[in-house]
């Protein structure tokens, strides 16, 4: 039996509705998409054995494997996958991931409720062929289809919502017990097409909200894998558990947003640039985060598919030069020792956010002489203030990728995006994103996105700080664990060595 510490209790295991990381981990065991992600993060055939783009890139035809079955033995057909995508975009489902697939023909209209769900451009030509038509190019559609939100729906589950945990799946495992706040127990699915290759018979996911407790349970041999590690314990873990600590780059970006709709940041680009230059990112990554993160100068993390993150030239400057330039810009922005900048950093309650805010406040004070106030808020209060943009000045922000695609990062600064908390509204940036979305040629798409990021970083509506890393403790008896940037680890790809 494999025992996995899984962070928060999943709020839902409905593949189209669930959003959290902890739900995703379990859903990838319970459902198999048309495509899949291999142990090292590579795109692989899954329920579909092959797929082909039509020459114009506006239609994807997928060929399903022969003899696919649901975990209860029923025959699985292409229509079940079509039903899953229709349910995902159906406004009645109110899915947080519907917009990922908005490029499917009539997708926007279906999500907005202007067209019936049946108008969506997905069609099962026969039991083993699925056709997806697009309104605009979506070159990473095959990778997106590996997302649990694109999971198929069993005919019996289409009418109403079955009880939590009662849905029928098609993955390598099936759910046998869900004891809320205690454990979720999965057993291998004998009807899975590749069950021969599954090695571990039973998997238990345990909620582990408290990272210190999780570490103790791992040490007491009650867990084989942890969801994370407590940052303050990292030096100790490195000394005593050594190779069991697995750290890998993760497609997530931690940055400070600057509210561009209010003073002091509205219309003051030199000030925003000065604050960005004054932050010593490597120092934060090393001293505050114990090297469990990489310093960031861009929004898009390195390692993302078909993209080069746009690191500004000053990132390589020696410290003295960088700080001198920061002071020059600060003066150009109209501030001085006699008239120092007074600014708030707002963050939600968390030790790590606080430590970073303290360090950045000190850097702004030391390099520029700015007077910084720290404002700590409870999570939901923080979210509301951040979104309303009435009170925020500088504020903590994060974006974690849904898929391995730079566009997903770039679009959060598009004028009307719901997560554009900075209120960044730049016509040129929007136009570049629009051009990228419409580009049929991947090289054109890529270059538009790279230019957009370069211009945005120069405008500094956000201050990148670090890129996330996934961190797990993995017992030596667990074999087949490969680090990957999506931090996806399917139980079917793991083996347990006999003690």
């Amino acid at each position, binding site marked *: 039996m494999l025992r996995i510490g899984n962070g928060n*209790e999943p*709020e*839902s295991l*409905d593949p189209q*509705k*669930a*959003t959290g990381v902890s739900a995703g981990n379990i859903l990838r065991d319970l459902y198999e998409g048309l495509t899949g992600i291999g142990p090292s993060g590579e795109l692989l055939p899954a329920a579909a054995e092959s797929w082909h783009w039509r020459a114009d890139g506006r239609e994807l035809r997928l060929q399903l494997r022969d003899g696919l079955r649901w975990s209860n033995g029923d025959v699985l057909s292409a229509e079940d996958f079509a039903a899953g995508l229709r349910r995902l975009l159906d*406004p*009645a489902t*109110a*899915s*947080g991931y*519907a*917009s990922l697939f908005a490029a499917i023909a009539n997708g926007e209209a279906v*999500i*907005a*409720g202007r067209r019936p769900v049946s108008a969506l451009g997905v069609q099962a030509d026969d039991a083993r062929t699925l056709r997806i038509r697009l309104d605009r190019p979506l070159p990473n559609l095959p990778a997106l289809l590996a997302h649990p939100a694109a999971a198929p729906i069993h005919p019996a589950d289409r009418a109403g*919502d079955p*009880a*939590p945990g009662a849905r029928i799946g098609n993955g390598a495992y099936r759910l046998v017990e869900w*004891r*809320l*706040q*205690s*454990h979720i127990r999965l057993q291998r699915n004998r009807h899975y097409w590749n069950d021969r290759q599954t090695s571990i018979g039973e998997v238990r996911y*345990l*909620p*582990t*909200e*408290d990272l*210190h*407790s999780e570490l*103790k*349970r791992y*040490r*007491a041999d*009650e867990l084989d894998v942890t969801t994370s590690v407590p940052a303050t314990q990292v030096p100790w873990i490195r000394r005593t558990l050594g190779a069991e600590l697995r750290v890998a780059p993760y497609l997530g970006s931690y940055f400070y947003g600057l509210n561009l709709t209010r003073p002091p940041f509205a219309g003051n680009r030199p000030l925003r640039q000065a604050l960005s230059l004054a932050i010593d990112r490597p120092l934060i990554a090393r001293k505050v985060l114990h090297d469990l993160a990489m310093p960031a100068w861009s929004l898009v993390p390195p390692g993302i598919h078909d993209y080069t993150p746009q690191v500004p030239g000053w990132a390589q400057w020696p410290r003295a030069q960088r700080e001198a330039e920061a002071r020059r810009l600060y003066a150009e922005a109209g501030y001085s020792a006699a008239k120092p900048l007074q600014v708030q950093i707002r963050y939600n309650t968390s030790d790590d956010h606080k430590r970073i805010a303290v360090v950045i406040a000190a850097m702004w004070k030391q390099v520029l002489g700015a007077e910084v106030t720290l404002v700590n808020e*409870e*999570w*939901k*209060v923080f*979210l*509301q*203030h951040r*979104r309303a943009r009435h009170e925020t000045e500088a504020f903590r922000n*994060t974006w*974690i990728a849904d898929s391995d695609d730079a566009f997903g990062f770039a679009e959060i600064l598009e004028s009307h995006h*719901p*997560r554009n908390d900075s209120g960044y509204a730049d016509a040129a940036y929007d136009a570049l994103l629009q051009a990228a979305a419409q580009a049929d040629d991947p090289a054109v798409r890529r270059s538009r996105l790279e230019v957009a990021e370069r211009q945005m970083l120069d405008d500094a509506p956000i201050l990148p700080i670090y890129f996330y890393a996934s961190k797990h403790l993995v017992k030596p008896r667990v074999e087949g664990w490969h680090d990957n940037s999506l931090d996806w680890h399917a139980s079917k790809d793991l083996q347990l060595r006999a003690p």
Partner: protein
Amino acid sequence: MLSRAATRLLTAVPTLFVLVGLSFFLMHAAPGGPFDSERSLAPEVEARLNAQFHLDEPAWRQFGRYLGGLLHGDLGPSLQYEGRSVAGLIGDGAPVSAALGAVALLLALTGGVALGAIAALRRDSALDRGLMLLALLGLSLPSYVVAPLLILVFALALDWLPAGGWDGPASVLLPAVALALPQLAAIARLTRGALGEVLAAPWIRAARAKGLPERLIVFRHALRPALLPVLSWLGPAAAGLMTGSVVVEQVFGIPGIGRYFVQGALNRDYTLVLGVVLFYGALVVTFNFLVDLAYGLLDPRTRPT
């Protein structure tokens, strides 16, 4: 006696009503809503979810709707846990919290009374001072310090007990001790104080003068009246233990309902918080009522003539 009990139970209804009303409007006054998250839903998706749970209506109408459901015994759906009812969540977690609380209560009561009695009988001795110092420590050490310490010693260093989870009798012990310690300390101090007073009372002197054995004096004549303050402490303490502790449940990974108090409030899961508050309120009222009844049995003076 019977009419008094009936009056007590009737006054419980307005008490609980005020409790629910206050909690409802306080929860709704807090900024943020159940569907705010790091990811931010598209405005139309959020509007649809709000409409689905009637969160787009004015607060007074939502309150009326909630009370209407309550009259039918319906605590509503949880806003956070998709497809689950609040009654179901409480029904799943309450037996766990109750079992853990009962063990903790038993530990606190037996341990507390025994230690308190020993201290009172050896008043001002080194033993008394040592015990009361320990009790002070037990009261002042928060459970987020005690619980990890217990795990370090008994699960990691000695490897006698599991470090967490809810899986068989062995897993009850550490969380029960962590939960019981502050109550045990309080009861020990209460018992010591009360027993000390009673032992100085004239009827005890009379009993001593009659030459009754000390054992009889303590157990039959002194302990019974000395336990009255402990008893009034017990009502709210029992309700508190039975509804679980956020910290202990989180540290040990126990599937009780204590965590829903804090988690529910942080997530703005209005119905879940109201359900747990109501459940807790009803328990406090019930335990206080039981304590009143027990008072009558222990102390003849409080019985109505």
